[in-house]
């Protein structure tokens, strides 16, 4: 339905987009993701013909450059990020402007599509209020309604969730997904990566005016791609509720402490200490923990080595011993007492430096269980106090 090739947009001396090429089919919701300034909005504006560009944009087989503005308006509907509303047009009047490309100069528009658009976006309630007087979130829905009234086979959405609360953000994306399911081609620039992953059929990851990755959300949202595109440390896990990729941005590693730290945990108790330890520059490993345990998920998302055992099958003391054999520092996470005993780290097997967190372990705690994770990081890096706990 849409095919873009060699798309280059220059603003002044800066290349905002540089040879971008991709396509989107009818019935597909394609998400364009990327950092601020990657050119997402520019891409949307090139695709609706309101920006000069080099390269080709084809809509339904015809080059955009050959279509009249009016014909483009019939084929491509756009939900902009914001709109400049001057004078007090009512919400209904603004939505009715979506019928502009379908209406002859002195003709009147068909009121039905406008009513349907108002109903569908839940804006009918304030249809007769001034559009400049509704809240930012309501205005966004008015703009979505306007694009619905435009009734075009291609719908471009610039930040469907921008300025919306969680409920309306999800509803806006549900609506976008519905439009795609009806057979339209929907391209949406979305800054919220987890929501984009949840609703889009495919993603295009844009950075520095070029495409970094393109494909299914799972294949695009990887730690490697994200660190290239966002120049940031990101962890990708799976959302426990929707089972779609969940992206968490982490602070850059602040120091490079060096040395390896092994965390003994289970049941998610190791999670609070993992990313601070990683950020501090330690080479972190985790395990043995049951497969599917939250500790294992978090460790994988952070790129740590994980040793797992089958669920409901407690690790043997040999497995624990092997895990601890190669590490410089052991961190004993504040697990439940039963777990602590089943893991069986006897003093002879512990590495030279060990940080005991909480009172479940049979050793006196170095850090209390409710202390901030930074205390654990500090203790792990404390080279002066090399110690191995002795059993009481």
């Amino acid at each position, binding site marked *: 339905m849409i095919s873009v090739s060699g798309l280059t947009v220059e603003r002044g001396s800066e290349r905002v987009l540089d040879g971008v090429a991709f396509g989107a089919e009818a019935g597909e919701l394609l998400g364009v993701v990327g950092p601020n300034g990657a050119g997402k909005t520019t891409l949307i504006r090139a695709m*609706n013909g309101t920006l000069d560009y080099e390269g080709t944009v084809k809509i339904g087989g015809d080059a955009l450059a050959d279509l009249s*503005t009016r014909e483009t308006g019939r084929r491509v*509907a*756009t939900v902009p990020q914001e*709109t400049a509303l001057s004078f007090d047009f009512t919400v209904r009047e603004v939505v009715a402007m979506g019928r*502009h490309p379908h209406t002859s100069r002195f003709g009147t528009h068909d009121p039905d599509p406008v009513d349907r658009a108002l109903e569908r976006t839940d804006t009918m309630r304030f249809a007769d209020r001034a559009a400049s007087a509704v809240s930012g979130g309501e205005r966004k829905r008015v703009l979505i309604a306007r694009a619905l009234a435009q009734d075009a086979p291609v719908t471009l959405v610039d930040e469907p969730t921008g300025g919306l609360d969680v409920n309306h953000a999800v509803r806006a994306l549900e609506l976008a997904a519905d439009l795609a399911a009806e057979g339209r081609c929907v391209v949406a620039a979305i800054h919220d990566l987890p929501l984009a992953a949840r609703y889009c059929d495919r993603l295009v990851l844009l950075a520095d005016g070029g495409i970094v990755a393109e494909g299914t959300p799972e294949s695009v949202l990887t730690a490697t791609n994200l660190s290239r595109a966002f120049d940031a440390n990101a962890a990708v896990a799976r959302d426990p509720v929707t089972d779609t990729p969940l992206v968490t941005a982490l602070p850059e590693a602040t120091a490079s402490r060096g040395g390896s730290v092994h965390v003994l945990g289970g049941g998610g108790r190791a999670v609070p200490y993992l990313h601070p330890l990683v950020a501090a520059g330690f080479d972190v490993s985790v395990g043995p923990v049951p497969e599917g345990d939250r500790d294992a998920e978090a460790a994988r998302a952070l790129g740590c080595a994980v040793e797992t055992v089958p669920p409901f099958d407690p690790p043997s003391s040999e497995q624990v011993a092997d895990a601890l054999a190669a590490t410089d520092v052991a961190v004993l996470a504040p697990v439940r007492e039963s777990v602590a005993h089943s893991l069986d780290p006897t003093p002879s097997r512990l590495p030279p430096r060990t940080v005991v967190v909480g009172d479940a372990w049979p050793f006196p705690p170095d850090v209390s269980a409710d202390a901030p994770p930074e205390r654990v990081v500090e203790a792990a890096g404390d080279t002066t106090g090399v110690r191995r706990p002795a059993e009481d």
Partner: protein
Amino acid sequence: MGATDTAVETPRKRRLRAAGWCAGLAVLLCLTVVWAASVGPVTLSTATVARVVLDALPGVEFRTTQTAEAVLMAVRLPRVALAAVVGVGLAAAGTVMQGFFRNPMADPSVVGVSSGAAVGAVAVIVSSASVPFGLGRQLAAFAGALLAGFFVYLLATENGRTPVATLLLAGVAVQTFLGAVVSLLIVQADDQGLREATYWLMGNLHGATWEKVVVALPAVVVGTIVLFAFARDLNVLLLGEADAGSLGVPVERTKRVLLAVSSLLTGAAVAVAGVIGFVGLVVPHAMRLLVGPDHRVLLPASALAGGSFLVAADTAARTFVGGLPVGVVTAFVGVPFFLFLLRRREVSGL
């Protein structure tokens, strides 16, 4: 549901509302014209005025008196008709300019058209050049208006795009420059020229003739109709140029048409009546309060109301002891009214 049903404006209802306002304001304009023509040193009844006007129409005959016909046809009616035409033109152009610039202070003079007209007219007055058909001053003013408007447009256009903010700034700059040129011309003038030029600059309908009406009328009528044809595009343009483009409005072309036609309207009005301020500013604002922002209703309503306003203002001007330039009256009425609007929500709501 009953309450919302009546509040909902369907396209049909909007057409009815537009027709209602236009019919009402057209009647008001006719009444104002008849009343204005009856006022003067020789008091005539409105019935007499109506009879003379109807008698002048082809195919209709009414019994009239010679005096009444002479006073009305030669003196009062050309002036009243000219006031109506100029008022319609200025108000229509003003409505479009405010929408076009998305600026409540915009009026037809912002793109330098009025100043261009002033330079043309004052140059002819001061140089006391020969006057073909008695309309040299008008032609010079009209030419000056269009040249200035075109020049401002060229100044503000780069790579085929004319940003509205640049246009506004270029307009203000050119306006100031042309204002200086007018001052320079006036300084060079003799007493007679000085008096005439000053009088012209204040805006007046003194010395209105049917010839002037014939010159201005076609431009104003055609121009207003063209602007009306673009009323819906103008509505969409108010959402911003990027939005308008995505809604199928060819933005740059539409801007060019709107700018050219409103300059033409203003040029025609200024050429025959001098610089009459505040009609293009106050009338559209007042009508926007009454009929709302939809240009499909607002534009014809403003145009008709502008006609009535200027006819009434000019009647006040000429009946004042010694006679006043109509520009003085529109400013005296317009400024307080505008300040009143400023204190209300209309202007701040923009």
